[in-house]
């Protein structure tokens, strides 16, 4: 029943999308400057059908309707309601439906919310967006249908991978999808802008909010994913340069570059073609990431079942998308001949863009190189953190420096200012204090620490200055402050992290340089869909004589049979104490991984601060539009 209803709604979405394409085509030839109300109506119907189809799938999950293959394979009637709901998008087919919903949502929002724009630009954007929607609907119906039926109906489902049963991970995919699928709307708008030849400023204004929204969700999505990895994977790390993590980071780099270059474009100073290239590139990177993750050509901690036929479809789509974009770009690209002074704001913004594109290149090569090498020569290599750290870290120094000095230059031209100032003196002082406290000998790390301190001090100083003048560019200040703090805390965390691995039996005590860890008790519990073995550990700090109780768990899930190791983390603002245990088969010895990780919460807070800047900018724009 739900299956038929779901398919009906999908066909409804397909029909309305085709109608919109037909109407927009017809409208391209019309001379008047009004978009007919029919298009608005169809767009509303499309939104209704698409959201309804998603709700039908959601309902099937909530009711545990195992007549749907998708629900049978990914859910179980014993599962807590929250995870039944998140199970909807925790698999390939369901997440594809979410993809389509976001494409449709952004299509309607763009149509209804974009005001005072050129008609043909708006119509063409809608046309391209609906071509994307149609392609994904065909993919869904022919290859990855979440509403496929199963007969006879099984009594029980197979269950959701327990590692995905986590609140952070339940909201991680929707956030990321809004981020990178949302970028589709400025991909469509960029192609539309080329063909309709609208002026650069109107284009910048019409896409800026969308870029901000997708950038914000992408940032928060990546953050939530990192927090999940930190708590759930039990390795004590939060970023692994895993190919799938890289797939979310690549669009983020382009979005960040885009966000900055729009600032230039908004002021009619140039960069039109470049902004268009970035708009196209963001969504291209998103689809590339999706291809890498779903086709199974990469090995990763992420758990999409691999299927070459899916890969082939996404690859064909990517080919079509890239070549049409290249064709449209070269046929219609606008002419520009603007020159700027080296010491102007836009020069610094262009520098930011080069850094972002460089970072993108490094991550893209690191991710793709093993695949290409394997295919061409057959040799298998693995590109890991050392590659990224080695290549990316040195470039943080000039980036931090440009972020510090760039924003204080004026548009178009500027006089060279003296380098010596109060902020620099303060930064050097702060750095020397830090250096004295951490006693780190590595020159590169010290330079990075110094320049992050310089950026933090400068942004705080800017905040004070602009507050006096009541002309506050608060969003930039908050985001740059967030970035400076992020880099600072990542390195401090790196320097002061402690890790010990050892084996313990119940009742034994292990002494490390600063800590004493006692294995006090072991308990077994049966919980709804898993059995839990809980270890009680007493960790005392020899330095300040405090002690904490930590309770790591080993969980044995029955559907599907999986063992997970739950870290126990005692967390405060300045330091996390992290303990995981795993059993060694046929013995009563447990392997213990004990870690002390300073400033983890401040790392998360820094990313929140970074994304908060985007939100503030978004609302500032809305306020300006109203005035």
């Amino acid at each position, binding site marked *: 029943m739900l299956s038929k209803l779901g398919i009906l709604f999908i066909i409804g979405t397909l029909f309305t999308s085709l109608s919109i394409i037909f109407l927009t085509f017809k409208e391209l030839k019309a001379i008047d400057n009004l978009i007919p109300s029919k298009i608005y109506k169809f767009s509303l119907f499309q939104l209704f059908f698409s959201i309804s189809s998603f709700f039908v799938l959601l309902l099937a999950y909530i009711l545990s309707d195992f007549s749907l293959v998708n629900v049978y394979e990914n859910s179980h009637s014993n599962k807590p309601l929250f995870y039944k709901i998140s199970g909807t998008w925790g698999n390939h087919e369901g997440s594809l439906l979410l993809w389509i919903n976001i494409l449709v949502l952004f299509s309607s929002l763009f149509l209804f919310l974009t005001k005072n724009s050129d008609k043909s630009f708006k119509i063409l954007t809608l046309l391209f967006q609906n071509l994307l929607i149609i392609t994904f609907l065909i993919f869904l119906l022919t290859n990855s249908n979440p509403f496929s039926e199963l007969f006879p109906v099984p009594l029980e489902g197979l269950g959701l991978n327990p590692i995905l049963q986590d609140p952070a991970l339940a909201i991680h995919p929707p956030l990321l999808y809004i981020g990178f699928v949302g970028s589709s709307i400025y991909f469509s708008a960029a192609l539309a802008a080329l063909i309709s030849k609208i002026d650069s400023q109107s284009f910048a204004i019409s896409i800026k909010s969308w870029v901000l929204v997708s950038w914000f969700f992408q940032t928060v999505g990546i953050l939530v994913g990192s927090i999940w990895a930190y708590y759930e994977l039990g390795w004590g790390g939060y970023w692994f340069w895993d190919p799938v993590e890289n797939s979310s980071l690549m669009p983020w780099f382009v979005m960040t570059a885009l966000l900055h270059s729009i600032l230039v474009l908004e002021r009619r100073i140039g960069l039109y073609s470049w902004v268009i290239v970035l708009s196209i590139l963001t969504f291209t990177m998103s689809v590339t990431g999706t291809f890498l993750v779903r086709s199974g050509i990469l090995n990763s901690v992420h758990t999409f079942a691999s299927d070459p036929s899916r890969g*082939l479809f996404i690859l064909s789509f990517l080919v079509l998308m890239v070549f049409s974009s*290249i064709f449209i770009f070269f046929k219609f690209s606008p002419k520009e001949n603007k020159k700027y002074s080296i010491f102007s704001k836009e020069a610094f913004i262009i520098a930011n863009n080069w850094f972002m594109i460089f970072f993108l290149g490094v991550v893209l090569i690191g991710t793709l190189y093993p695949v290409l090498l*394997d295919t061409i020569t057959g040799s298998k290599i693995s590109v890991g953190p050392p590659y990224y750290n080695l290549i990316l870290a040195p470039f943080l120094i000039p980036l931090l420096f440009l972020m510090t000095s760039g924003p204080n230059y004026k548009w178009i031209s500027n006089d060279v200012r003296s380098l010596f100032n109060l902020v620099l003196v303060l930064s050097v002082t702060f750095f020397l204090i830090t250096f004295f406290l951490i006693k780190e000998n590595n020159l590169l790390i010290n330079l990075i620490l110094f320049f992050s301190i310089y950026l933090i001090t400068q942004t705080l100083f800017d905040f004070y200055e602009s507050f006096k003048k009541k002309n506050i560019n608060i969003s930039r200040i908050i985001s740059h402050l967030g970035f400076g703090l992020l880099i600072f805390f990542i390195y401090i965390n790196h320097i002061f992290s402690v890790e010990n691995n050892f084996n313990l039996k119940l009742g034994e005590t292990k002494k490390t340089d600063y800590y004493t860890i006692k294995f006090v008790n072991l308990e077994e519990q049966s919980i709804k869909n898993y059995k839990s073995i809980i270890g009680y550990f007493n960790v005392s700090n020899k330095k300040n004589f405090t002690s904490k109780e930590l309770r790591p768990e080993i969980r044995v899930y029955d559907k599907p049979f999986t063992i997970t190791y739950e870290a126990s983390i005692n967390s405060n603002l300045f330091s996390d104490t992290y303990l995981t245990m795993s059993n060694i088969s046929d013995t009563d010895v447990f392997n213990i991984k004990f870690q002390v990780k300073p400033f983890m919460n401040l790392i998360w807070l820094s990313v929140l601060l970074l994304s908060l800047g985007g939100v503030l900018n978004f609302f500032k724009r809305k306020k300006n539009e109203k005035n």
Partner: protein
Amino acid sequence: MKKINYIIISVLFSLLFIVLYLSLGNEKIYNTQDLVGKKISEVEINLFQSNETFNTKELTNNEFTILNFWASWCGPCRKEHPNLVRLSKIKNLKLIGINFKDEKDNARNFLRENGNPFDILGEDKNGKNSVNFGVYGIPETILIDSELKILKKYIGPLNINDVNEIRKIVKK
């Protein structure tokens, strides 16, 4: 100029897509078994007890050698250890243990508790050297002959059948 850019970009993308298309049909899981029959690479390995190193070239002096990658923190290593002790009694077979990403104290305790079957004990503190042998996870065991050719590769703990198989190969 515009036309040249157009062509270059299109060609580059085409090449990329062709390779990605080919990669769809490839075997994805890393299978180190295909190293069997190849020679091991010449690698300097740090010795566990001293600061000296030892080169895998020296293994040509042995008729057969087993390279075993282990760590005290690894449960399956504990399980396979009695089998290594069994292998250590074979005369024309030398055992090289490579302690993988481990702490010295723990490793010493492990050998004290379970016995030390190794003729030479090396260490690979950060796991980099082991990659030269195609080892990413432990335990793994490689059997080589005097020409340094890999005869067998065991991924995961050795069981008694593996021990018997090694006995047979070495006796021939």
